[in-house]
């Protein structure tokens, strides 16, 4: 069963968000990394780039497939996880920790209210699996 921490918020595209003041940390969920399999390449925006809620901000690739990642929030990229360039398997091993993708300075903090709670996301993944 996929790990879905209670203190995070989620999207239906399987990203997670941790809000820290006016910054949101974004990554992909345990469910997502498990479905993808071994992550071998991650493409991320550059610090300073703008991202828009529900628009693609990067991609994550397994041996077999490429998946786009969609930004849960709007704002400016404050930092990206440079370590993933050489150690993309961190996404598999620690999706909510060392496998984080980007930090976004929120331009519209109200957007986070529309994200899914852990319980809602769990229901969503169960429905999707059926």
């Amino acid at each position, binding site marked *: 069963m996929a790990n879905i921490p209670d203190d995070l918020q989620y999207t239906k595209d399987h990203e997670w968000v941790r809000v820290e003041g006016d910054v949101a940390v974004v990554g992909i969920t345990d469910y997502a990394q498990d479905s993808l*399999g*071994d992550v*071998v390449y991650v493409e991320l925006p550059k610090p300073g780039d703008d991202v828009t809620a529900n628009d693609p901000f990067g991609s994550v*690739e*397994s*041996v*077999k497939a*490429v998946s786009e990642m969609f930004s849960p929030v709007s704002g400016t990229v404050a930092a990206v996880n440079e370590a993933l*360039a050489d150690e993309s398997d961190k996404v598999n091993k620690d999706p909510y920790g060392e496998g984080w993708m980007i930090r976004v300075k929120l331009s519209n903090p109200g957007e986070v209210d529309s994200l899914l709670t852990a319980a809602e996301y769990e229901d969503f993944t169960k429905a999707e699996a059926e």
Partner: protein
Amino acid sequence: MVDFGGWDMPVQYRAGTIEEHLRTRKHAGLFDVSHMGEIDVRGADAIALVNHVTSNDASKLIDGQAQYSALTTPDGTVVDDLLVYRFAADHLLLVVNAGTTEKDWDWITSHRPDAQAELKNVSTDYCQLAIQGPDAVHILQKLTDLPLAEIKYYHFIEGEVDGIASIVSRTGYTGEDGFEVYADGAKAEQIWNKLLDAGNYGSETGVLPCGLAARNTLRLEAGMALYGHEIDESTTLLEANLGWICKLGKGDFIGREALAKQKETGVEKRLVGFEVTERGIARDGQEIVINGERVGKITSGSPAPYLKKNIGMAYVPTEFASEGQEIQIDVRGKLIGGRIVKTPFYKRAK
């Protein structure tokens, strides 16, 4: 699980594609390839029939030998690639791809010469399990008295594996030493489980069950063609670097004239291997750019887990089809660098 030619097949097992791939290179991998089709050819003219519809020369086979070959169209393009097994002068077995078995059957039965030979689609009679990797011979030997070490590459013998009548063939699709075992389909699970046990499945150095994704990355590193990717009815054997299975001197066969002509005039495009030299992964269907021109398409592109590179195969105009040629690949709108390299990308130490 994915649908593959009508078969439900696992893309990967629990260990994941990379580990499955590496374990096969270092120790052993077990593949359920029962989806492959089998067509039995029997009769006094069995060899003549097969030689008429395929490009390699089946008359060169001896009993207990197999060869790689292709069913060809009159244009010299490929209906399917296959293995031809010779049991006796009047008994051959064709092992074909799953997704093309019906097409092959229709093709062969509608193009067969009026010869003394009987064809039978026996695909559902057989399971096929492939045990591949440097430890394969030791693992399989635990289940059989057959002298496995004496079987030469592309040869086979008949006998019992775990008490079950089988065909044991020293062939594979991974670039490793290994065997393919054909037996009664009802016995697949028994042989599968015994091979896992014999191979210490569960230990760090034991055999791993491998899915379609590892089968694909292993064959790609080994530079082997996959039907529907490198070869199909739009590419000729010569363009696909498969001139070595075009025996133009063996007598007439479907496609011989076209292939002979193309051999004389030369091919306009050719299949090459390449590696990506910048960050990014090349994928099937992406375009190759040389000197700013879109000149070709990728037939297979993937990370290569053992080589730790991103590699692929593509068709490019013959003028560019040489080692060291710099290329660019259009990866979803972004051009990244690459270079044409020699294939196979990976060759095992003998």
